[in-house]
Protein backbone atom coordinates (compact mmCIF):
# COMPACT_ATOMS: atom_id res chain seq x y z
CA UNK A 1 0.00 0.00 0.00
CA UNK A 2 2.76 2.41 0.92
CA UNK A 3 4.51 1.89 -2.39
CA UNK A 4 1.38 2.40 -4.36
CA UNK A 5 0.62 5.67 -2.65
CA UNK A 6 3.86 7.03 -4.00
CA UNK A 7 2.36 7.40 -7.47
CA UNK A 8 0.67 10.52 -6.22
CA UNK A 9 2.74 13.64 -5.87
CA UNK A 10 3.17 14.17 -2.16
CA UNK A 11 3.23 17.47 -0.41
CA UNK A 12 2.28 18.16 3.12
CA UNK A 13 -1.00 19.55 4.30
CA UNK A 14 -2.48 19.40 7.76
CA UNK A 15 -6.02 19.96 6.57
CA UNK A 16 -7.34 16.43 6.72
CA UNK A 17 -6.05 15.74 10.16
CA UNK A 18 -7.53 19.01 11.34
CA UNK A 19 -10.84 18.34 9.69
CA UNK A 20 -11.07 15.02 11.38
CA UNK A 21 -9.68 16.16 14.70
CA UNK A 22 -12.90 18.08 15.24
CA UNK A 23 -14.85 14.87 14.97
CA UNK A 24 -14.10 13.93 18.53
CA UNK A 25 -16.39 16.75 19.47
CA UNK A 26 -19.13 15.65 17.10
CA UNK A 27 -22.57 15.13 18.48
CA UNK A 28 -23.22 11.58 19.38
CA UNK A 29 -26.77 11.44 20.60
CA UNK A 30 -29.00 9.31 18.50
CA UNK A 31 -31.30 12.24 17.87
CA UNK A 32 -28.45 14.22 16.40
CA UNK A 33 -26.93 11.31 14.56
CA UNK A 34 -30.02 10.27 12.74
CA UNK A 35 -31.51 13.58 11.91
CA UNK A 36 -34.60 12.95 9.86
CA UNK A 37 -34.34 15.84 7.46
CA UNK A 38 -30.98 14.80 6.12
CA UNK A 39 -31.96 11.20 5.59
CA UNK A 40 -34.65 12.16 3.15
CA UNK A 41 -32.06 13.72 0.89
CA UNK A 42 -29.78 10.71 0.78
CA UNK A 43 -29.71 7.69 -1.49
CA UNK A 44 -32.56 5.30 -0.99
CA UNK A 45 -30.73 1.98 -0.89
CA UNK A 46 -28.93 1.91 2.41
CA UNK A 47 -31.14 4.25 4.30
CA UNK A 48 -33.32 1.66 5.92
CA UNK A 49 -30.23 0.19 7.49
CA UNK A 50 -29.40 3.54 9.02
CA UNK A 51 -32.77 4.22 10.60
CA UNK A 52 -32.78 4.90 14.33
CA UNK A 53 -35.00 2.01 15.30
CA UNK A 54 -32.61 -0.49 13.83
CA UNK A 55 -29.49 0.56 15.67
CA UNK A 56 -28.43 -2.69 17.28
CA UNK A 57 -25.70 -2.13 19.81
CA UNK A 58 -22.46 -4.01 19.49
CA UNK A 59 -20.05 -4.56 22.31
CA UNK A 60 -16.96 -2.43 22.13
CA UNK A 61 -16.78 0.96 20.52
CA UNK A 62 -19.46 3.54 21.13
CA UNK A 63 -22.05 5.55 19.29
CA UNK A 64 -19.80 8.54 19.69
CA UNK A 65 -16.96 6.72 18.02
CA UNK A 66 -19.31 5.63 15.24
CA UNK A 67 -19.87 9.32 14.49
CA UNK A 68 -16.14 9.79 14.23
CA UNK A 69 -15.87 6.81 11.88
CA UNK A 70 -18.77 8.04 9.76
CA UNK A 71 -17.18 11.47 9.44
CA UNK A 72 -13.86 9.88 8.54
CA UNK A 73 -15.67 7.94 5.82
CA UNK A 74 -17.48 11.08 4.70
CA UNK A 75 -14.16 12.90 4.34
CA UNK A 76 -12.84 10.15 2.08
CA UNK A 77 -16.05 10.11 0.07
CA UNK A 78 -15.94 13.91 -0.33
CA UNK A 79 -12.42 13.50 -1.69
CA UNK A 80 -13.36 10.74 -4.11
CA UNK A 81 -16.56 12.40 -5.27
CA UNK A 82 -14.79 15.69 -5.94
CA UNK A 83 -12.00 13.91 -7.76
CA UNK A 84 -14.36 12.14 -10.16
CA UNK A 85 -16.50 15.24 -10.62
CA UNK A 86 -13.43 17.21 -11.66
CA UNK A 87 -12.31 14.38 -13.92
CA UNK A 88 -15.63 14.46 -15.72
CA UNK A 89 -15.51 18.24 -15.96
CA UNK A 90 -12.01 18.57 -17.36
CA UNK A 91 -10.84 15.15 -18.49
CA UNK A 92 -12.35 14.82 -21.92
CA UNK A 93 -12.15 11.04 -21.60
CA UNK A 94 -13.92 8.57 -23.83
CA UNK A 95 -14.77 4.90 -23.99
CA UNK A 96 -14.04 2.65 -21.01
CA UNK A 97 -12.28 5.39 -19.04
CA UNK A 98 -15.25 7.74 -19.39
CA UNK A 99 -17.66 4.98 -18.44
CA UNK A 100 -15.61 4.18 -15.35
CA UNK A 101 -15.44 7.85 -14.33
CA UNK A 102 -19.18 8.36 -14.80
CA UNK A 103 -20.26 5.26 -12.90
CA UNK A 104 -17.87 5.75 -10.02
CA UNK A 105 -18.63 9.48 -9.77
CA UNK A 106 -22.27 8.52 -9.30
CA UNK A 107 -21.46 5.97 -6.60
CA UNK A 108 -19.21 8.29 -4.62
CA UNK A 109 -21.78 11.09 -4.79
CA UNK A 110 -24.38 8.67 -3.45
CA UNK A 111 -22.05 7.66 -0.63
CA UNK A 112 -21.54 11.32 0.26
CA UNK A 113 -25.27 12.05 0.24
CA UNK A 114 -26.01 8.99 2.35
CA UNK A 115 -23.35 9.72 4.95
CA UNK A 116 -24.37 13.37 5.12
CA UNK A 117 -27.96 12.29 5.61
CA UNK A 118 -27.05 9.94 8.43
CA UNK A 119 -24.80 12.44 10.19
CA UNK A 120 -27.14 15.39 9.82
CA UNK A 121 -25.77 18.36 11.71
CA UNK A 122 -22.82 16.26 12.93
CA UNK A 123 -21.44 15.95 9.39
CA UNK A 124 -18.06 17.53 8.70
CA UNK A 125 -17.99 20.24 6.08
CA UNK A 126 -16.76 19.47 2.62
CA UNK A 127 -13.14 20.63 2.29
CA UNK A 128 -11.86 22.35 -0.82
CA UNK A 129 -9.63 20.30 -3.04
CA UNK A 130 -6.73 20.68 -5.43
CA UNK A 131 -6.07 17.57 -7.47
CA UNK A 132 -2.94 19.07 -8.93
CA UNK A 133 -3.71 18.33 -12.53
CA UNK A 134 -4.05 14.58 -12.04
CA UNK A 135 -7.45 14.63 -13.72
CA UNK A 136 -6.23 16.20 -16.95
CA UNK A 137 -4.82 13.09 -18.59
CA UNK A 138 -6.51 9.72 -18.54
CA UNK A 139 -3.44 7.85 -17.39
CA UNK A 140 -2.73 10.03 -14.38
CA UNK A 141 -6.45 9.99 -13.66
CA UNK A 142 -6.51 6.19 -13.57
CA UNK A 143 -3.31 5.92 -11.55
CA UNK A 144 -4.61 8.39 -8.98
CA UNK A 145 -8.00 6.68 -8.94
CA UNK A 146 -6.29 3.39 -8.17
CA UNK A 147 -4.59 4.90 -5.15
CA UNK A 148 -7.78 6.51 -3.88
CA UNK A 149 -9.85 3.35 -4.32
CA UNK A 150 -7.27 1.02 -2.79
CA UNK A 151 -7.02 3.42 0.13
CA UNK A 152 -10.80 3.52 0.42
CA UNK A 153 -10.96 -0.27 0.68
CA UNK A 154 -8.21 -0.36 3.29
CA UNK A 155 -9.90 2.45 5.24
CA UNK A 156 -13.34 0.84 5.42
CA UNK A 157 -11.76 -2.51 6.23
CA UNK A 158 -9.73 -0.95 9.02
CA UNK A 159 -12.74 0.74 10.58
CA UNK A 160 -15.27 -2.10 10.28
CA UNK A 161 -14.13 -3.94 13.43
CA UNK A 162 -14.37 -0.72 15.43
CA UNK A 163 -17.98 0.04 14.52
CA UNK A 164 -20.33 -0.19 17.48
CA UNK A 165 -23.72 -0.38 15.81
CA UNK A 166 -24.75 -3.07 13.34
CA UNK A 167 -26.90 -0.42 11.68
CA UNK A 168 -23.66 1.35 10.77
CA UNK A 169 -21.64 -1.78 10.04
CA UNK A 170 -24.07 -3.07 7.45
CA UNK A 171 -23.91 -0.11 5.07
CA UNK A 172 -20.18 0.20 5.74
CA UNK A 173 -19.80 -3.38 4.49
CA UNK A 174 -21.96 -2.55 1.49
CA UNK A 175 -19.65 0.37 0.66
CA UNK A 176 -16.48 -1.63 1.38
CA UNK A 177 -17.42 -4.13 -1.32
CA UNK A 178 -18.21 -1.37 -3.80
CA UNK A 179 -14.90 0.41 -3.19
CA UNK A 180 -13.18 -2.94 -3.78
CA UNK A 181 -15.08 -3.31 -7.05
CA UNK A 182 -13.98 0.19 -8.09
CA UNK A 183 -10.38 -0.64 -7.19
CA UNK A 184 -10.39 -3.85 -9.22
CA UNK A 185 -12.09 -2.07 -12.11
CA UNK A 186 -9.57 0.75 -12.37
CA UNK A 187 -6.74 -1.71 -11.92
CA UNK A 188 -8.10 -3.74 -14.82
CA UNK A 189 -8.17 -0.59 -16.95
CA UNK A 190 -4.49 -0.16 -16.09
CA UNK A 191 -3.84 -3.86 -16.69
CA UNK A 192 -2.29 -3.46 -20.11
CA UNK A 193 1.14 -3.53 -18.53
CA UNK A 194 0.19 -6.67 -16.57
CA UNK A 195 1.93 -5.27 -13.53
CA UNK A 196 -1.23 -3.96 -11.90
CA UNK A 197 -3.42 -6.85 -10.80
CA UNK A 198 -7.11 -6.19 -10.11
CA UNK A 199 -6.88 -8.46 -7.07
CA UNK A 200 -3.29 -8.29 -5.87
CA UNK A 201 -3.57 -10.38 -2.69
CA UNK A 202 -5.55 -13.24 -1.15
CA UNK A 203 -6.30 -11.28 1.97
CA UNK A 204 -6.94 -7.57 1.82
CA UNK A 205 -4.80 -5.43 4.10
CA UNK A 206 -6.51 -2.84 6.29
CA UNK A 207 -5.20 0.61 7.19
CA UNK A 208 -5.83 2.44 10.44
CA UNK A 209 -7.47 5.84 10.49
CA UNK A 210 -4.18 7.57 11.17
CA UNK A 211 -2.43 5.67 8.37
CA UNK A 212 -5.15 6.72 5.94
CA UNK A 213 -5.16 10.33 7.08
CA UNK A 214 -1.41 10.50 6.80
CA UNK A 215 -1.53 9.09 3.27
CA UNK A 216 -4.30 11.46 2.24
CA UNK A 217 -2.49 14.40 3.78
CA UNK A 218 0.61 13.63 1.78
CA UNK A 219 -1.30 13.86 -1.48
CA UNK A 220 -1.88 17.55 -0.84
CA UNK A 221 -5.29 17.15 -2.44
CA UNK A 222 -7.10 18.71 0.51
CA UNK A 223 -6.55 22.43 0.72
CA UNK A 224 -8.79 23.44 3.58
Amino acid at each position, binding site marked *: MTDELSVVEFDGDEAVAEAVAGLHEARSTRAGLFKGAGIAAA*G*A*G*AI*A*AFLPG*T*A*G*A*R*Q*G*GSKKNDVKILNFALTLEYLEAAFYAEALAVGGYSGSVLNFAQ*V*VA*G*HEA*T*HVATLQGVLGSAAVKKPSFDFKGTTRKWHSFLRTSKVLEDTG*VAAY*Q*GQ*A*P*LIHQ*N*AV*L*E*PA*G*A*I*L*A*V*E*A*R*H*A*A*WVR*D*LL*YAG*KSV*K*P*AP*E*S*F*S*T*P*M*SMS*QVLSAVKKTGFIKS
Partner: protein
Amino acid sequence: MNIFTNKPRIDLSAVVDFDTDGALQETEATARRHSRRNFLRTSGVAVGGAVVAGGLLPGASALAASTPKGDVAILNFALTLEYLESAFYASAIKHAHLTGEVKRFAHTVHAHEAAHVAALKKALGSAAVKRPTFDFGSAVTSQSAFQATAIVLEDTGVQAYQGQTPFIKSNAIFMAAISIHPVEARHAAWIRNLSGQSPAPAAFNPALTKDQVLAAVTGTGFIK
Protein backbone atom coordinates in the same frame (compact mmCIF):
# COMPACT_ATOMS: atom_id res chain seq x y z
CA MET B 1 -25.23 -8.98 -24.35
CA ASN B 2 -26.78 -10.91 -21.53
CA ILE B 3 -24.16 -13.32 -20.35
CA PHE B 4 -26.79 -15.64 -18.93
CA THR B 5 -28.01 -16.51 -22.39
CA ASN B 6 -25.00 -18.80 -22.52
CA LYS B 7 -27.07 -21.09 -20.33
CA PRO B 8 -24.60 -22.04 -17.68
CA ARG B 9 -25.81 -24.92 -15.53
CA ILE B 10 -26.92 -22.46 -12.96
CA ASP B 11 -29.54 -19.83 -12.80
CA LEU B 12 -28.79 -17.50 -9.98
CA SER B 13 -29.66 -14.41 -11.91
CA ALA B 14 -32.63 -13.65 -9.72
CA VAL B 15 -30.56 -13.93 -6.58
CA VAL B 16 -27.70 -11.79 -7.72
CA ASP B 17 -29.80 -9.00 -9.14
CA PHE B 18 -28.32 -5.75 -8.05
CA ASP B 19 -31.58 -3.97 -7.48
CA THR B 20 -32.34 -6.05 -4.42
CA ASP B 21 -31.95 -3.46 -1.72
CA GLY B 22 -34.36 -5.62 0.21
CA ALA B 23 -31.64 -8.15 0.80
CA LEU B 24 -29.54 -5.64 2.66
CA GLN B 25 -32.43 -4.59 4.83
CA GLU B 26 -33.49 -8.11 5.57
CA THR B 27 -30.02 -9.09 6.65
CA GLU B 28 -29.81 -5.99 8.76
CA ALA B 29 -33.07 -6.78 10.48
CA THR B 30 -31.77 -10.19 11.44
CA ALA B 31 -28.35 -8.95 12.37
CA ARG B 32 -29.54 -6.50 14.96
CA ARG B 33 -30.64 -9.40 17.09
CA HIS B 34 -27.10 -10.75 17.12
CA SER B 35 -24.60 -8.33 18.48
CA ARG B 36 -21.18 -9.73 19.00
CA ARG B 37 -20.51 -10.74 22.60
CA ASN B 38 -16.77 -10.67 22.69
CA PHE B 39 -16.48 -7.82 20.31
CA LEU B 40 -13.23 -5.94 20.74
CA ARG B 41 -12.27 -7.90 23.78
CA THR B 42 -8.73 -7.00 23.15
CA SER B 43 -8.49 -3.29 23.65
CA GLY B 44 -6.04 -2.54 20.88
CA VAL B 45 -7.07 -3.83 17.52
CA ALA B 46 -3.89 -4.15 15.54
CA VAL B 47 -4.16 -3.05 11.97
CA GLY B 48 -1.96 -4.40 9.27
CA GLY B 49 -0.99 -7.54 7.45
CA ALA B 50 -0.23 -9.38 10.65
CA VAL B 51 -3.87 -9.28 11.59
CA VAL B 52 -4.84 -11.85 9.04
CA ALA B 53 -2.21 -14.33 10.01
CA GLY B 54 -2.71 -13.66 13.70
CA GLY B 55 -6.47 -13.65 13.49
CA LEU B 56 -7.37 -16.46 11.20
CA LEU B 57 -4.40 -18.65 11.81
CA PRO B 58 -4.01 -18.89 15.56
CA GLY B 59 -0.97 -21.10 15.34
CA ALA B 60 -1.09 -24.85 15.25
CA SER B 61 -4.06 -25.09 17.53
CA ALA B 62 -7.39 -24.62 15.87
CA LEU B 63 -10.34 -22.76 17.30
CA ALA B 64 -10.27 -21.74 20.90
CA ALA B 65 -12.70 -23.72 23.02
CA SER B 66 -14.48 -20.46 23.73
CA THR B 67 -15.23 -19.76 20.06
CA PRO B 68 -18.98 -19.22 19.79
CA LYS B 69 -20.83 -21.98 17.96
CA GLY B 70 -22.34 -19.43 15.61
CA ASP B 71 -18.87 -18.37 14.51
CA VAL B 72 -17.88 -21.99 13.83
CA ALA B 73 -20.98 -22.36 11.68
CA ILE B 74 -20.14 -19.19 9.78
CA LEU B 75 -16.57 -20.35 9.19
CA ASN B 76 -17.81 -23.68 7.87
CA PHE B 77 -20.33 -21.89 5.67
CA ALA B 78 -17.49 -19.77 4.28
CA LEU B 79 -15.30 -22.85 3.89
CA THR B 80 -18.00 -24.56 1.84
CA LEU B 81 -18.17 -21.61 -0.52
CA GLU B 82 -14.40 -21.46 -0.79
CA TYR B 83 -14.21 -25.22 -1.50
CA LEU B 84 -16.72 -24.64 -4.27
CA GLU B 85 -14.89 -21.69 -5.78
CA SER B 86 -11.48 -23.29 -5.50
CA ALA B 87 -12.65 -26.52 -7.15
CA PHE B 88 -14.44 -24.57 -9.85
CA TYR B 89 -11.29 -22.69 -10.87
CA ALA B 90 -9.15 -25.82 -10.70
CA SER B 91 -11.58 -27.62 -12.97
CA ALA B 92 -11.89 -24.69 -15.38
CA ILE B 93 -8.12 -24.35 -15.65
CA LYS B 94 -8.01 -28.00 -16.70
CA HIS B 95 -11.01 -28.16 -19.02
CA ALA B 96 -12.21 -24.76 -20.22
CA HIS B 97 -9.42 -23.94 -22.69
CA LEU B 98 -8.94 -20.51 -21.17
CA THR B 99 -6.84 -17.93 -22.92
CA GLY B 100 -5.46 -14.43 -22.41
CA GLU B 101 -6.50 -12.38 -19.42
CA VAL B 102 -9.33 -14.76 -18.58
CA LYS B 103 -6.72 -17.44 -18.09
CA ARG B 104 -4.67 -15.14 -15.88
CA PHE B 105 -7.82 -14.31 -13.94
CA ALA B 106 -8.53 -18.00 -13.37
CA HIS B 107 -5.01 -18.76 -12.17
CA THR B 108 -4.85 -15.74 -9.88
CA VAL B 109 -8.26 -16.27 -8.37
CA HIS B 110 -7.74 -20.00 -7.98
CA ALA B 111 -4.66 -19.28 -5.90
CA HIS B 112 -6.65 -16.85 -3.74
CA GLU B 113 -9.53 -19.26 -3.18
CA ALA B 114 -7.10 -22.07 -2.35
CA ALA B 115 -5.45 -19.77 0.20
CA HIS B 116 -8.86 -19.02 1.71
CA VAL B 117 -9.63 -22.74 1.93
CA ALA B 118 -6.30 -23.46 3.59
CA ALA B 119 -6.71 -20.63 6.10
CA LEU B 120 -10.28 -21.58 7.01
CA LYS B 121 -9.43 -25.27 7.35
CA LYS B 122 -6.49 -24.47 9.56
CA ALA B 123 -8.60 -22.18 11.71
CA LEU B 124 -11.36 -24.76 12.08
CA GLY B 125 -9.09 -27.73 12.68
CA SER B 126 -11.12 -30.84 13.40
CA ALA B 127 -14.35 -28.80 13.28
CA ALA B 128 -13.91 -28.19 9.54
CA VAL B 129 -16.55 -29.61 7.22
CA LYS B 130 -15.35 -32.11 4.67
CA ARG B 131 -14.78 -31.05 1.11
CA PRO B 132 -17.82 -32.04 -0.96
CA THR B 133 -17.60 -33.68 -4.37
CA PHE B 134 -18.30 -31.33 -7.23
CA ASP B 135 -19.56 -31.62 -10.75
CA PHE B 136 -19.36 -28.43 -12.76
CA GLY B 137 -20.64 -29.98 -15.95
CA SER B 138 -20.75 -27.66 -18.93
CA ALA B 139 -19.86 -24.63 -16.81
CA VAL B 140 -16.18 -25.53 -17.22
CA THR B 141 -16.18 -26.71 -20.82
CA SER B 142 -15.90 -23.34 -22.53
CA GLN B 143 -14.45 -19.96 -21.72
CA SER B 144 -17.79 -18.18 -22.10
CA ALA B 145 -19.59 -20.58 -19.77
CA PHE B 146 -16.72 -20.29 -17.32
CA GLN B 147 -16.97 -16.50 -17.30
CA ALA B 148 -20.73 -16.52 -16.80
CA THR B 149 -20.46 -18.93 -13.89
CA ALA B 150 -17.49 -17.16 -12.33
CA ILE B 151 -19.48 -13.92 -12.22
CA VAL B 152 -22.31 -15.61 -10.37
CA LEU B 153 -20.04 -17.41 -7.91
CA GLU B 154 -18.01 -14.31 -7.11
CA ASP B 155 -21.02 -12.02 -6.77
CA THR B 156 -22.58 -14.59 -4.47
CA GLY B 157 -19.36 -14.88 -2.48
CA VAL B 158 -19.29 -11.13 -1.87
CA GLN B 159 -22.92 -11.12 -0.78
CA ALA B 160 -22.38 -14.11 1.46
CA TYR B 161 -19.46 -12.60 3.38
CA GLN B 162 -21.27 -9.28 3.58
CA GLY B 163 -24.35 -10.97 5.00
CA GLN B 164 -22.42 -12.91 7.63
CA THR B 165 -19.92 -10.40 9.02
CA PRO B 166 -22.45 -8.68 11.30
CA PHE B 167 -23.16 -12.01 13.00
CA ILE B 168 -19.56 -12.81 13.85
CA LYS B 169 -18.83 -12.50 17.55
CA SER B 170 -15.14 -13.31 17.74
CA ASN B 171 -12.95 -10.40 16.80
CA ALA B 172 -10.23 -12.55 15.26
CA ILE B 173 -12.73 -14.26 13.00
CA PHE B 174 -14.34 -10.96 12.10
CA MET B 175 -10.95 -9.56 11.06
CA ALA B 176 -10.34 -12.55 8.83
CA ALA B 177 -13.77 -12.40 7.19
CA ILE B 178 -13.49 -8.67 6.56
CA SER B 179 -10.15 -9.26 4.81
CA ILE B 180 -11.68 -11.84 2.44
CA HIS B 181 -14.88 -9.90 1.70
CA PRO B 182 -13.24 -7.15 -0.42
CA VAL B 183 -11.06 -9.71 -2.22
CA GLU B 184 -14.16 -11.53 -3.44
CA ALA B 185 -15.50 -8.15 -4.57
CA ARG B 186 -12.32 -7.52 -6.53
CA HIS B 187 -12.67 -10.93 -8.19
CA ALA B 188 -16.28 -10.17 -9.10
CA ALA B 189 -15.43 -6.79 -10.59
CA TRP B 190 -12.50 -8.22 -12.52
CA ILE B 191 -14.41 -11.01 -14.23
CA ARG B 192 -17.37 -8.73 -14.86
CA ASN B 193 -15.13 -6.24 -16.64
CA LEU B 194 -13.59 -9.04 -18.71
CA SER B 195 -17.11 -10.12 -19.67
CA GLY B 196 -18.46 -6.74 -20.67
CA GLN B 197 -20.66 -6.40 -17.59
CA SER B 198 -20.56 -3.49 -15.18
CA PRO B 199 -17.90 -4.25 -12.55
CA ALA B 200 -19.75 -2.19 -9.95
CA PRO B 201 -23.47 -2.28 -10.71
CA ALA B 202 -24.67 -0.31 -7.69
CA ALA B 203 -23.49 2.22 -5.11
CA PHE B 204 -24.24 -0.22 -2.29
CA ASN B 205 -23.45 -3.89 -2.65
CA PRO B 206 -26.38 -6.06 -1.59
CA ALA B 207 -26.00 -8.81 1.01
CA LEU B 208 -27.50 -12.28 1.11
CA THR B 209 -28.59 -14.33 4.08
CA LYS B 210 -27.06 -17.73 4.66
CA ASP B 211 -30.31 -19.41 3.58
CA GLN B 212 -30.39 -17.44 0.36
CA VAL B 213 -26.81 -18.37 -0.44
CA LEU B 214 -27.32 -22.03 0.35
CA ALA B 215 -30.48 -22.14 -1.76
CA ALA B 216 -28.60 -20.57 -4.65
CA VAL B 217 -25.67 -22.94 -4.31
CA THR B 218 -27.98 -25.94 -4.09
CA GLY B 219 -29.72 -24.70 -7.22
CA THR B 220 -26.50 -24.86 -9.20
CA GLY B 221 -26.31 -28.64 -8.84
CA PHE B 222 -22.55 -28.26 -8.54
CA ILE B 223 -22.39 -30.03 -5.17
CA LYS B 224 -22.93 -33.75 -5.49
